[in-house]
């Protein structure tokens, strides 16, 4: 009978220790942030949406070949005067993109990079698919500016 009582006392002690842990946590600073008001800033290397600097691109089609999900459709023409190839079509399909960063790594002239935008949801399916990276307002469905400093 004594062993039973001893077990139950140990049990109560362990419950009190557990309560002690939660008591310590009550006085710790919260780690969460209020998202819509207080947006996190992404790290330097964060792989967000694929972005393009049009004039640096030489339309070598490396990125569209390496892409595992065929999300980049690129075609280029030889510009006669400047003797350089330039892209006339650069369509990016966010729906297929798996954010693996292979295109960024393989681009010889680093014209293609992944920006820090992580808010890529949108209301219509059409906004997602044929994003033309040559135009300036590439991501028309993004309302908020692409990177925003922390409020506080």
């Amino acid at each position, binding site marked *: 009978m004594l062993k039973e009582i001893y077990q139950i006392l140990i049990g109560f002690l362990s419950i009190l220790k557990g309560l002690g842990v939660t008591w310590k946590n009550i006085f710790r600073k919260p780690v969460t942030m209020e998202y819509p008001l207080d947006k996190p800033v992404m790290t330097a290397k964060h792989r967000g949406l694929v972005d393009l600097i049009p004039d640096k691109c030489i339309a070598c089609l490396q990125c569209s*070949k390496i892409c595992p999900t065929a999300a980049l459709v690129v075609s280029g023409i030889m510009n006669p005067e400047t003797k350089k190839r330039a892209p006339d079509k650069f369509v990016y399909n966010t729906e297929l993109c798996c954010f693996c960063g292979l295109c960024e790594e393989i681009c010889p002239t680093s014209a293609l990079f992944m920006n820090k935008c992580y808010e890529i949801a949108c209301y219509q399916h059409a906004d997602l698919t044929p994003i033309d990276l040559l135009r300036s307002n590439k991501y028309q469905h993004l309302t908020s500016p692409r990177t925003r400093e922390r409020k506080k």
Partner: protein
Amino acid sequence: METAIVSKSIQERFPDAIVETKPEWICLKKEIFTPVLQFLKTGHLAFINLHCITAVDRQGSVEVVYHLYSFEHKWMLTIKVILLDSDLTIDSLTSLWSAANWLEREVFDLFGVKFTGHPDLRRILNPDTWSEHPLRKDFKRDGFIPRPVR
């Protein structure tokens, strides 16, 4: 611990069991396949862990590949059995290792290899009503993303 040693000990016990011995794997005949594996498991070689069963579709025949592992000798043995496309059946190993149960069901599901003596041989990953076997080379789907353009 080499494949040669294992194939020699198999040779002594079952003279005509081995079709071909390579440094990486041993190819066995289909007919007397289970006794050899019974010996491999219970014999002094002690391959008590059936690590993986898979299959490779060689367009005309299907190679069923078994990976056995022995904790004593810390060595992985690869056993192959060639099945012609005409009769894709082989004895089930669920009596020796219960790990084989699910592994064989997966090979049946993806390749269509029938394992005789399997307690519950039905598809494991795909719906039961489906008739095709996706990992065969002749399985084509038009919507499938084609190979990246060269």
